[in-house]
């Protein structure tokens, strides 16, 4: 037990929390943007997977981590375009389309992996690149904070910046106002000449960009190879974090960190002698519990809002 506590209260644990939170945060922010625009993105998982795969393959063939990252983001966007085309233009149910996208990415990456690496499991035969690690001057000299915050791969910092940018975009720009309007009442947006499809497409593309970053972090930072289905549900956890965070940027960040801690914890406890299966189930079980608790509060809140909008006279009377 003391061994466990020691592990948890170490700087290396906090460091690993940041590391495992990053892909969750990317996914959660992507989920947040599309959710607020009224398009629930179940396909985050597939978008990340495509990003992770493209990053590895392109960096291996071009010998450039940067081009790999560009390819990861581009493939996230490509997946978003597919999702958008089917759900918005061809009116496929967005959830089914998301599921299909995940299947597509899961099967497609293995299919392509076999073509390029002649292996259906991992890409270790490819000499792929990893993203550079960033040592932050001054900060890295400070005890405790230095070992926690410095020396991560570049995407960890990109994720932190992305959280701020997403907040600014959603709440301080005209585009963000339109996005929220589209999500809350698409007819209202449509009636003033805002193209609902364009806004939702944009939201999905932002989702795709963020997922692409998340995928690149997994295969080019977290580890240095691609493995089949390596996202392992992180896209879904991101979605849950966004819901748990009350569909706000701040809440989403906090929930992502919370899930990140759970994830890091399971990695740590696994090295002790507790059956790893249970530990691995913990983040998912926590999500279900959190979801239930959250949904309970949320339905009450929603019922209240619905009543308000149905009976506006009440307020005035």
């Amino acid at each position: 037990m003391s061994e466990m506590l020691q592990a948890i209260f170490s700087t290396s644990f906090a460091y690993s929390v940041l590391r495992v939170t990053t892909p969750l945060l990317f996914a959660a922010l992507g989920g947040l943007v599309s959710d607020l625009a009224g398009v629930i993105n179940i396909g985050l998982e597939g978008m990340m997977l495509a990003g992770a795969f493209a990053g590895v393959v392109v960096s291996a063939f071009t010998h450039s981590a940067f081009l790999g990252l560009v390819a990861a983001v581009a493939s996230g966007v490509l997946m978003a375009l597919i999702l958008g085309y089917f759900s918005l233009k061809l009116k496929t149910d967005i959830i089914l389309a998301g599921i299909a996208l995940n299947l597509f990415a899961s099967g497609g990456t293995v299919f392509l992996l076999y073509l390029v690496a002649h292996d259906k499991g991992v890409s270790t035969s490819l000499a792929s690149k990893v993203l550079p690690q960033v040592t932050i001057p001054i900060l890295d000299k400070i005890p405790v904070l230095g070992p926690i915050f410095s020396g991560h791969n570049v995407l960890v910092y990109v994720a932190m910046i992305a959280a701020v940018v997403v907040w600014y975009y959603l709440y301080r720009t005209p585009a963000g106002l339109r996005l929220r309007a589209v999500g809350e009442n698409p007819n209202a947006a449509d009636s003033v000449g805002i193209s609902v499809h364009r806004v939702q497409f944009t939201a999905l593309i932002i989702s795709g960009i963020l997922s692409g970053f998340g995928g690149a972090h997994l295969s080019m930072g977290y580890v240095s190879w691609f493995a089949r289905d390596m996202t392992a549900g992180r896209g879904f956890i991101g979605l849950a974090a966004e819901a748990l965070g009350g569909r706000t940027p701040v809440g989403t960040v906090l929930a992502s960190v919370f899930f990140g801690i759970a994830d890091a914890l399971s990695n740590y406890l696994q090295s002790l002698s507790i059956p790893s299966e249970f530990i691995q189930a913990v983040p998912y079980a926590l999500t279900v519990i959190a979801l239930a608790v959250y949904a309970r509060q949320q339905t009450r809140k929603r019922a209240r809002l619905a009543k308000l909008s149905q009976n506006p006279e009440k307020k005035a009377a």
Partner: protein
Amino acid sequence: MDVLLEMKGIEKIYPNGVVANQGVDFSVAPGEIHALVGENGAGKTTLMKILFGLEQPEGGTITYKGKPLHIASPHVAIANGIGMVHQHFMLVPSLSIAENVVLGLEPKRGLSFDWKAAVSQTEELAARYNLPVNPTARVQDVPVGTRQKVEILKALMRGAELLVLDEPTAVLTPQETTELFAALKKLKSQGHTIIFISHKLREVKEISDRVTVMRAGRLIGVTDTATATERDISRMMVGRDVVLHVDKPPTTPGDAVLRVEGVRYVADTGKEVVKGVSFEVRAGEVLGIAGVEGNGQRELVEILTGLRKPSAGRVIAAGKNVTGKDCRAVRQAGVGHIPEDRMTHGVAGLGTIEENLIADRYDSKALNPRFLLSLKSVSELGKKLVKEFDIRTQSPKTPVKMLSGGNIQKVVVAREFSANPKLIVANQPTRGVDVGATEFIHKKLLENCAEGAGVLLISADLNEVMSLSHRLAVMYGGEIVAVFPNADEVTEEELGLYMLGVKRMKLAAGSEAS
């Protein structure tokens, strides 16, 4: 005469096969207030949606300011100075009024949204057109009348010269309607042209210069308002004189089938929306509750029928205490309910007529003679009710959503009445229903009443509530503010005063309306 807008030969067929417009010609002169009238389903709204680019016609041309115009989307309409205020407001409830007004035309400072400019622009516009609003209030917190002003401001913000108002008074109190008309006249004097959709002839007479009448998707005629009488216009609308009076058999009420005692309801917001309502409905009588919508009627009805639990008070239906019980228990006590919104509560649109007719008795012994549902019994019941309630359909196995509004309402009525209820709670039973079906539903309601059922009728349609009820009550601000033991002795004007809260009776607590 000058022509601002000319729509010629407009055809519109919806994907479900409903023909909404057939060769409609429609023209508007600059600077006039033009009323577009017709019954529900006459195709007025569709025609205006085509004008605003929300629907694409299968045929026809639009000429605006002398030039042909293809209106592919609302964007095109707005760019050409056409604005529309929809029947269901197109507002974003959680955003402020200013944000709603500038949405799509947001002022910027650098990359950011300029909130201060949005507020000042809204204030200026409101002052110029005499449509006062508080720009920083959230839309979800303001009354309907204000929301409508926001809608008009939105259109004006976009430089609308031709303004389309789709049944703007449907949700307004008489006072708000007066305010609206004053604002419209001011807009007209400033050179705006207005198309005003309505089926309230009095309003049409008051506000419009010309009237275009539509019926069943076709143009019937255009006339100067000043030279036509209400009766003329109504004849054009329905093709015959409207029956304004219902023959109501005299009644000798029996025992109370509904006793409501001090019912209160506090909404989650903490606001009390039903404030201690008490009354009785006796067997064989119709008690009408008049009132402007949103004065607690919906909550009261939902409490009486089991859709909502009261915060305090008792509900005794057919001798059983059903306070806080669910719909099933209330139904078992013998209560039938015609809900306010038939597509939400009244039917499952994708279900067949048969399936909708058995919804309240699907688990009865009669339909489940052995372990399984008897398809034969279901089908027999369906055939019988379709015939008895004159539901116009090819087959009882047709999905309900393929029927017209009136026939859908007949499906609801058939199910509710055929259960032989001791009490019928009818909330807006003929809203959006054609004249034929309205008459039929009224007739059936009175028949059931004559056979001994008690009827609680809630309607915002004064004509309906006055002509059907034996006794009348008025609800205002969550309370019963007036009771008239003999409905025939009340005038519309007098009711109006109570409905608007100008007058209220002194009623003994606990014995109101009993």
